[in-house]
């Protein structure tokens, strides 16, 4: 365990990273911590997104969008080896907090939603704006959280379409957001 205290230090430690060459990461994104941060192919990290690996490694798959102000990674000390895994095609919207163990493929974490530590999200889940997933909660595939924590199973069967739309969105964002890969390597 590293003896780094919470990110009070102005010069945060530069974490070890494994970045895909096709990653788009804005200069003003912040990667801090001491564990490994892995970012997959074609993933886009918006400016002012915060990935904090102080308390555990972070793995983000390919074709993901990590929006500004979102906080990825454990925000407090956890069990050994615990980390955050985000699978492929996941959108983390503005201001969302993700501490979960696994976020399944094609999930959408909406604006200012919170996904508690240790939780397990199946594939294609959608956590609505301001909704929260409790610690250690397990959500089956296609779960939708909306309103004041209401939930349902989405069986509209348009997952492939949605994944394609994420890919299209990434195509556009790659052109709009200047990437500065070298800064984080």
């Amino acid at each position, binding site marked *: 365990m590293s003896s780094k205290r919470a990110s009070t230090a102005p010069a945060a430690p530069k974490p070890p990273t494994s970045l895909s060459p096709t990653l788009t990461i804005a200069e003003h994104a912040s990667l801090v911590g001491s564990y490994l941060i892995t970012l997959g192919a074609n993933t886009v990290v918006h400016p002012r997104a915060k990935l904090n690996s102080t308390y555990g490694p972070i793995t983000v798959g390919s074709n993901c969008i990590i929006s500004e102000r979102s906080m990825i990674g454990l925000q407090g000390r956890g069990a050994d080896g615990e980390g955050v895994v985000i699978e492929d095609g996941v959108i983390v919207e503005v201001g969302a907090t993700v501490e979960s163990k696994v976020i399944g493929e094609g999930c959408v974490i909406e604006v200012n939603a919170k996904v508690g530590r240790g939780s397990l999200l199946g594939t294609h889940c959608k956590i609505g*704006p301001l909704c929260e997933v409790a610690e250690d909660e397990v959500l089956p595939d296609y779960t939708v959280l909306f309103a004041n924590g209401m939930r349902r199973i989405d069986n509209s069967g348009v997952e492939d379409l949605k994944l394609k739309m994420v890919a*299209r969105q990434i195509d556009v964002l790659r052109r*709009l957001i200047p990437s500065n890969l070298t800064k984080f390597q």
Partner: protein
Amino acid sequence: MSKKPVKGEYIETDTGNKVSRRSQIIGTTNIILGGKTVIQAEVIIRGDLLRTYPSSSSEGKGNPVAVAIGRYCFFSRGCELRPPGKMYKGYLLFLLPSSSPSYLQHELMVFGSTFSHYPLKIADHVLIGPGTIVEAALIGSHVSIGAGCVIGKFAIIKDYARVLDGTVVPPNMVIPSFSVVGGRPGRVVGEVSEGEVDGFDLREVYRGVGN
């Protein structure tokens, strides 16, 4: 209300905009400020999320606009303005003027259905509360949005509407004039009464902001 401005917290522009030094404005060339607008600390404005789908009008001259803001708007601490984005299917060539350059058409052929951001337009006397995230398409004049709200993509908020604190306005929602909207997802919960209309004027608020 109880901000303790450090010396020189705000930069005042020629048109009287008061922009906090601690705001995070990205893509400034694509943002229009009408004047006398206040932008507080930690406000994010995403001017970089430009429209990639070519507009049928307004081609050519001038900078493209991602965020257009009118006069006497007030953006409270920590709020965010973000142009909405969506998939655009079909119609592409149909909307394109025949005069557009051929290389553009080529690009359209490749991106037959594509994603694009669209400009976020905000009229005059719009108050946006702290921590609120706005991805609307249009916000009319004299609109008051509370704290901690989420304004969904492509929402249209008409004049003299009020959005209560903590509301989640769902994407594509149209809020008619004189509506009070609250809840998750937001719904019209009341009407703005005749007497409240004058209270939406933000000139006094603007004057109260200083270094």
